[in-house]
Structure formats: C-alpha cells, structure tokens
C-alpha cells in the first residue's frame, strides 16, 4: 500500500490569531472610512457631478474621493497582509512590524505634542508585543529554533 505523505501542521500561536483579528477589525474600520466620505458627498445618490479640482486645489468632492481612495488602498493592503499573515509569510510579519513601528512612532510624537490617541497606542502596543513573541517569530522564520538569534537577512 502506498504510504500517505505525512502532513505536518503547526498549531498557530494565540498571538497570531489576536493580530489577525486586529487586522480584520482594522479592515472593517478602513472600509467604513472608504464609504463615509462618499456618503457625505452624496456620491452614491448622484454620482460624481461636480469638478474635482478648483485651480490647483481639491474641491470637497475631490478631497472626499482622495480620502476614500487612500483608505481603500489601505484596506486592500490590510487584506493582502492578513492573507500573507494567515499563510505565515515572512514578508507579512515584516510589513506588519514596520507598520506598527511607524504607527507607534507617530502616536508617540502626537502624545508628546498634546494629541494623545490612547486606543491606537494600546492596540499598536498589543500588536508589537504579540509579533515579538518567540513562537510567533519562530513560525514566521524570523528567529531560529534555538531561540537565541534572529535571522538578519
């Protein structure tokens, strides 16, 4: 009888699930941020009726479309990262860690200039610590199995 190929599966660490849920919730928020400016400007009801530029400046409609497009890009990027993250791709860990680091830096600068955003700060902190877990780093091949060294390339 032909032997079946043994499929090895590793249990996904809880931190990965937490981060994945975080990305999904962020996706839903971004989706709302895509739709909200368009609703505000009545794009769904009347379509794009007015001009997008007034001279060198954006009109309110143009501004709404730009914001919507930016958030659309971010939400799509979030979905791509989520897929990469759930499929345990190394690049997904790197993108997420870089993004979290960037977001934390902005949040901290805002905090020190008197504009704190504690919710973003807390969620970024949780994601950063979750991504730093040894078993998360091992599953994404950021750290070797001995747990002593982090791959540097």
């Amino acid at each position, binding site marked *: 009888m032909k032997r079946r190929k043994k499929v090895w599966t590793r249990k996904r660490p809880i931190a990965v699930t937490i981060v994945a849920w975080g990305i999904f919730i962020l996706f839903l928020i971004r989706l709302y941020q895509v739709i909200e400016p368009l609703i505000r400007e009545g794009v769904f009801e009347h379509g794009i009726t007015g001009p997008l530029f007034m001279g060198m400046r954006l009109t309110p409609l143009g501004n709404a479309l730009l914001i919507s497009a930016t958030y659309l890009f971010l939400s799509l990027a979030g979905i791509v990262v989520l897929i990469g993250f759930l499929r345990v791709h190394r690049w997904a860990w*790197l993108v997420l*860690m*870089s993004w*979290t*680091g960037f977001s*934390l*830096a902005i*949040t*901290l*600068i805002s*905090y*020190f200039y008197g504009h704190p955003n*504690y919710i973003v*700060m*807390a969620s*970024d*902190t949780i994601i*950063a*610590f979750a*991504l*730093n*877990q*040894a078993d998360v*780093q091992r599953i994404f091949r*950021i*750290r070797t199995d001995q*747990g002593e*060294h*982090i*791959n*540097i*390339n």
Partner: protein
Amino acid sequence: MNTSTSTDRPTMPINAPDLDLLRRYEPVIRFTKGEQFYPTDVERYVKESSLWAHYPDGRDELLVKQDDLTLESLVEQRPAVFGTVHYLRFIETLSLSESAQVLANQLRLRSILKNNFHAGVGRLARGGLLPRMADALFTISFLLRGRVPAASAAAAELDYFHMRAQKDNFVYYGRVVRQNDWVALQYWFFYCYNSWRSGFGGVNDHESDWEMITIYLYEGDEGLLKPEWVAYASHDFHGDDLRRRWDDASQLDLADGHPIVYAGAGSHASYFRPGEYQAEVHLDLPSWVNSAHQAWNKFWTNALGQQPVDPFRIPFVDYARGDGMSLGPGQSKAWTPVVIDESTPWVSQYRGLWGLFAKDPISGENAPAGPMYNRDGSPRGSWYDPLGFAGLDKVPPPDDTLRLLVKNSAEITTHQAQLESMIPEKAGALQALGIKLKSMEKNPHLAKQHAALEKKMAPMIEEVRGLRREYSENMAILEGLKERIEREKSGMGDDPRAHIRHLAMPVTTRRRRFDRAAEAWAAVSLSLLLFGIVGLVFFAPNFLWVGLAIITLLFVVTESILRGAFIQTIGQITALLAVISAIILVVHFWFWLLMAALVGIAVFLLAQRLRELTG
C-alpha cells in the same frame, strides 16, 4: 618552507644543553604586512634610550642620558622613595616642527619600503551605532588620560629602521624551566614599540613590548624529550585557554617541527591561526550604570525575547594575517637566540618600565616591565609559574598519566575495601541502639534516657549515611578511572581541545554586499549625526525633538540595511517604542488596569472554583 600540519614530535636528548633545546623548537613568527617592529635585542634599545624616575610628587628626573645608558648601568642600585617609577624613554619629547618632520619622513619611508597596511573591513563597521558612540568616548578619553604622544610611533619607526640598517638582528630571549616533570621552553620577544593604536586602529600604543610563548616538553621513551603543549600569550585569554596540543593540526601550524606564531599587527599578540581577531574593550563605568544595564538586558532578552545589547563594548581588531615578513628557521630571516634566567642581571635586577611611563591610570599606554616583572614591580606569573600560566599545573606529562591513574585507582579500591567492612560494623551498632531506643518508648520514666540515646545516635546516623554516600561516589569515580585506564591502554587520545573553554578564533572576513558603503558609513555616521543635531538647533529649533527622532530613526535604519540587520532592527525599534507606549498607558490608566486585573483574577478564580464544585 611549507607550513605542515604534521603531528610529528621532534625529540631531543634529556641532557641536551638549554640552547640546543631552544634552537630545536624555536618558533616561526609570521607578521602582518605593514608591521613596522620586529623582535630585537635589548642592548641596542637600551643604548638608544635614557633612564628616568617619576616621583610621587609628579616630578620626572633624568637619571642617565641616551648613549650613556648600558645594560650594566641600567641595573645599578637606585634607592628611591615609595611610589617611584623607573622607566626608559626611547623617544624624547618632540617639538611641533620635529613631529611634522618625523611624520613626513615616516610616510616617505613607508612608500620606499612599500610596507603599507590595508585594514579591509575595519573595526568600526563591525560594531553598531551604539558601540561607535562608546568608541568616540574612548577616543575622547585620551584627551584626559596620559598617552604616548602622536608622533612617537613615527619617530620610533624611523629609529628602529636605522637600528636595523646598522645591524639586522632578530633576537629571542630563551629560558628553560624544569618543573613537575615538564620542561618549559620560554621564548621572550622584545619589540621597540607597540603601535597597535597609531598604526592599526587598536586599543593602545606604548614604547617597548614584551611577548612570550612557551613550549612544554616531557620525557618520553628512551630518555628523549618530546613536545606536548604550546602556549601563546594573548589578549583576554588565561590558563587552559592559552595552550594547544602539539598534535592538534587544526589549531597549531608547524613548519618542520617548529610552531608557527601569527603575530598581531602592532600589538604583537600571538595567535595560533592566521586571521583577524576581534578584541573587545569594556568601558570602565560606575557600578550603578552596569547594574542598570544588566537589569535592562535581562528585561530586554527574557521578557521581550530580543538579543542582548551592549553599547559599552568597543570592538577592536587585531590583525594577525601572517601575510608579511616571516621570521625563524627556514624563513627569510633567522633568529639570534640569547639564553636568559634569573642570573641575567637586566632580567632580575631592573624592575622598572622598558619604555615611557605615560601616566595612564588604566596602564594601557604605559610601557611594560621586563619578562620577570609586572608594571608595579611584582613578579610576573608567567615567569615564576610557567605551568600554572597555561593551566598545566594540574596536568601530568602523558607518560605519567597511566601510572597516576593506576595509583589513584588502587588507592580508592583499598579505601573501598575498608568501607565495605566499616559500614556493616557501624550500621550493626546503630541497629542495636535503635532496638534499645524502641524498647524505651511508651515508658514515661525513661524519657530522659530516650532523649540522651537519641542525641547519641544522631551523629552515628550521619556518619553511616556519609560512609554510604562516599562508597557510592567512589564507585562512580572508580568506574571513570577504569574507563580512563582502558582508553589510555588502548592508546585512544583525548579531544585535544577538551580543556579549552574560550577558543580564540579569527572572525570571518567574508565580503558583504554593502561592505564599502558600510565602512564609509561607519566612518562618517557619528559626525553626520552631530552635524544634524547642530543644524536642527540652529535652523529648526521648533521641531528639535521630532527632528531628532526622525534623524535617529533614519540613521538606525540606514545602519541596519548596510549591516544586513534590517529585520532585527525593525523588531527592536518597535519593541522599544511599545515599551515606552506601555509605560505611558500604565501611568495614565493604572487605576483601570488594576481594576481590570482584579476582575480578571476574580473571573479566573470563580471559573476554577465552579469547575471544582461541578466536577
């Protein structure tokens, strides 16, 4: 002559004269291209030097001027107050114009000799931004510490070149010591100058340099001496780590039965393998800084799973490439051997420094004392205890090993036989007392006797237990000895490196994609950072902190890309920012966090108890 990795052991008669023994095993030294100083004779050096005394009140006095000083006048008795330091001075103080002239002549000489050193990937690129900042502090510390003047190395190089032009003489000072059935051959090398800092980006410079290697022989079959171990004095290594076995071909290069030494460029430290060695200097910091650093590293590694960070470690490279001049038997330059011992006057009677006393409190720039003494005039360990120096005081010569093993085994076996009769005897006596004790129980009128007997039995119980433990331990030792004897009898050797705890190995010098850029960046980054800060202060003072954060981030990211550590750096930066954010959140929401923790504990306990109740 080719380098061989032969395990042949050239033999010598046990009664061979010391000079013959020294000559038979004298080493080959391979230097790095660019080296300026080679082992020379002390006589000419002393003649070129003046003798000085530095007194505790800070005064320096010239005792014997240059050209008048000889090895005989050097050892004359010179009574002095406590705290006086006698020292030689090879290079006199140079004026500004003399310094400029000397530096120009040095460049000319190097271009004529075509003896230039190329660092390759230098030490700065081998450490991160934080070690480079510590390195800058170390460099600045030379402004406060005593140091050898900048042009001294150049003047010493020129003087030594003239000495060589008169007589090209390469000397080792050999000494033969017989201790505990070992014959130790010590080879001492004297250099006019250590130019590690000025010539090769190392830790220090100092006038004169003494280096040493030792070869350990034992009496083998037919009264012939055979080499077994070789020890090279080196930075940061002590005892067992200094020595290699003669037959360890992967660690010891031999050239027709002569060990090969790879000398560090400028430092003249001795290495077994050619290559570039990373030496590390730790800044001498207050204990509270060290404690805080340790606590942070513990949190950083244990709690956050990051790699430990040591910004107070400055990497220096000791280049022992072996691509320069080769000195010794069969090489282009041969040795002139000189036998020394305690009866050699300049060895035993001059306790001063062999070069400038730079008044450096951490001694790095002060010249060393002679082969027999430390800088403070105390006896040098490697001189009076050549076996202990390389951790050989506990190692018998190979031919004695089996005899000592059998002797040990026989002694333990005899003792075991004694224990075998002693233990039942003592245990029997204990049992008899035990029965007596039992019979006293439940008799209130015997309470006192019961307690007394119990007290009497306690040490006996301990003794029997101890004897049984000893018997059991001896059995294990005997097993080990038996195994070891079998190995010895069958001729199975040990791992030649089993005794080494820290093996000095050259660092890999593989080229990386951004080596050139990394090197250039390492050289200019710190200055650029400081320029950037000054620019922010003058041109954008309102954005000082944001600008500082952005500049630092840019520098760190650039550094990580060039060093091939981008992922690691991103992880570390984010972890650090997360720690800062966590502290801010705790400070602002400590009450709610505490409440949440209490609710969490309450829910957990409730769930546990309910499970117990229903289960």
